[in-house]
């Protein structure tokens, strides 16, 4: 059934006259060309389509889109379409739309087989692994150039980055470490109370914070705050072709952008971790002395004897490794970012996910090694 603003006139043999009237604008919706095609199929003798328009015709791209599709469909059925009776503007747009453009594209609509797709995925994973290794190699080379004094290294940038990694995360690290220390003390006290051994809370808090927890919590904070900002920053630079500009000037982006960031994080992570150790112990002390009525002097003395210098070194090794993971993940994701706005978002998320996953895996490995070595 055809709508009332489209009338078909078959009065002349072999010629279809389409009478257009009424509203054919985008805002009011237009008719799908399939309805017209189905009418044409029922009159296979038609060889020519003409148009006539009434005075009340309101049209815009809606009509032209309809006509364009009709002309293309009719051409397949060897039906000639004459646009003579159409409004002049519509004729001009049709001529423009039907112009043959030199650049045509071939559509690749072939679906890969399961094996091909599986192989593709494997290649993709091995590709990203080699990408990571290449990047690490670049970092080692650039670092050796820095040590030999041949690197293009801007100290001003480096100091700013130190400030960003240290001062800007300082408050967050204070708060989180203090709370983690308090939570540990609370959770430990529930069990130790049963044995009347609450004083050992100081040992639990001290050892846990210094050996691993401070470093892990600081790592997670720095990864979320600094790693993500590195990825976003370098990703935007990649999008804006700033990294290409460095390359064309003969400056290695790894030397210029990655090394200062890597060094800043590697230096600030242990500093923040030591600070977090103290904040965590303070958190435990507040709960122990303030709420569990333990003797403050005794608490501190217990902590002092429980926390050995070895544990501090283990904590610092953790923080150093985490620093490398966070900086490499952030910079790698940023530099390999796709050149669009969505790419920057993906790079940022991926930097944080890679950073935190790397931190957890590294913690497990270091703990295992310490276990084997008996420290």
């Amino acid at each position: 059934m055809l709508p009332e603003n489209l009338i078909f006139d078959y009065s002349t043999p072999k010629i279809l006259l389409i009478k257009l009237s009424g509203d054919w604008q985008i805002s009011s919706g237009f008719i799908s060309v399939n309805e017209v095609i189905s009418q044409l199929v029922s009159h296979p003798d038609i060889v020519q389509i003409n148009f006539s328009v009434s005075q009340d015709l309101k049209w815009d791209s809606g009509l032209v889109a309809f006509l364009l599709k009709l002309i293309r469909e009719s051409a397949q059925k060897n039906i000639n379409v004459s646009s003579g009776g159409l409004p002049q503007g519509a004729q001009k747009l049709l001529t423009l739309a039907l112009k043959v453009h030199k650049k045509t594209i071939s559509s690749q609509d072939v679906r890969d087989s399961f094996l091909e797709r599986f192989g593709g995925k494997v290649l993709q994973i091995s590709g990203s692994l080699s990408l990571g290794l290449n990047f690490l190699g670049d970092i080692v080379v650039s670092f050796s150039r820095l040590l030999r004094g041949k690197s293009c290294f801007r100290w001003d940038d480096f100091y700013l980055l130190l400030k960003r990694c240290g001062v800007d995360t300082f408050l967050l690290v204070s708060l989180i470490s203090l709370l983690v220390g308090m939570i540990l003390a609370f959770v430990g006290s529930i069990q130790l109370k049963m044995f009347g051994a609450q004083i050992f809370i100081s040992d639990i808090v001290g050892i846990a914070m210094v050996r691993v927890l401070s470093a892990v919590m600081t790592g997670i904070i720095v990864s979320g705050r600094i790693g993500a900002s590195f990825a976003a920053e370098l990703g935007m630079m990649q999008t804006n072709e700033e990294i290409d500009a460095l390359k064309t000037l003969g400056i290695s982006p790894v030397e210029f952008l990655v090394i200062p960031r890597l060094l800043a994080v590697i230096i600030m992570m242990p500093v923040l971790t030591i600070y977090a150790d103290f904040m965590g112990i303070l958190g435990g002390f507040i709960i122990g002395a303030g709420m569990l009525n333990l003797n403050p002097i005794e608490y501190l003395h217990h902590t002092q004897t429980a926390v050995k210098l070895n544990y501090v070194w283990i904590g610092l090794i953790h923080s150093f490794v985490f620093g490398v993971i966070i900086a490499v993940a952030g910079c790698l994701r940023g530099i390999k970012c796709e050149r669009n706005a969505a790419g920057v978002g993906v790079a940022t998320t991926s930097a944080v996910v890679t950073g935190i996953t790397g931190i957890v895996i590294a913690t497990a490995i270091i703990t295992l090694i310490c276990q084997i070595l008996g420290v």
Partner: protein
Amino acid sequence: MDSINQPVLEVQNLDLRYDDYVVMRGLSFSVNKGDIFIVMGVNGCGKSTLLKSLIGLMAPTKGRVLYYGKSFWDEDEIGKHNIMRCFGVLYQSGALWSSLTVGENIALPLQLYTKLSYQQIQEIVALKLSLVGLDGFGDFFPSGISGGMRKRASLARAIALDPDIIFFDEPSAGLDPINARKLDDLILELRDGLGATVVIITHELASIFGVGNNSVFLDAESKTMIATGDPKVLLANSKDLKVNQFLTRART
């Protein structure tokens, strides 16, 4: 909103500033239906700032911008929104949404502002892509096509809703002479086909003389307009040294 003998766009005594920094003052001109109106001037004279205030991105400090007699900046949010529906903008960089394909870029305004079905929207998208000579590129992402093609794709998005007025911010910037000429021709053809009015911000002389039939010349030093009219007439008759230097590429 259309009526006979009324300018499509009228600017009355417009002042533009960034905080205390005056960009332009005392701008007054009008654009009639079917005009291809050129806003020209040297780099940094405030052409793009003027465009911002015309398309609703920056409020002027004084004066009025009238569309079909309605003062844009005096309208409430709904009124402004309705006026903004009447114009399409081609940004200097193209400003295609990079996370969407070219086809989705054109389809988005249609999905937001019309009640068309998915199939109908695809037909309109196909038409707009054909109009700018990008048939079959609907599934490409903006990052996968050339600069000239991005510009045309962006034009297809600007005309998605059949706007009454199309604004072009430096359309031929970054294009080679052949493609710049093709884009000029396309502007003319679209103006005739869609019955639209065109405002072009440019300093490309070839475009100015090739398509413009009316213009305003902004001067960076005096911070106001110093000439208005058909660029060809300005070239022949203007006594102003700066206008002549600009239009003839004479050395200062």
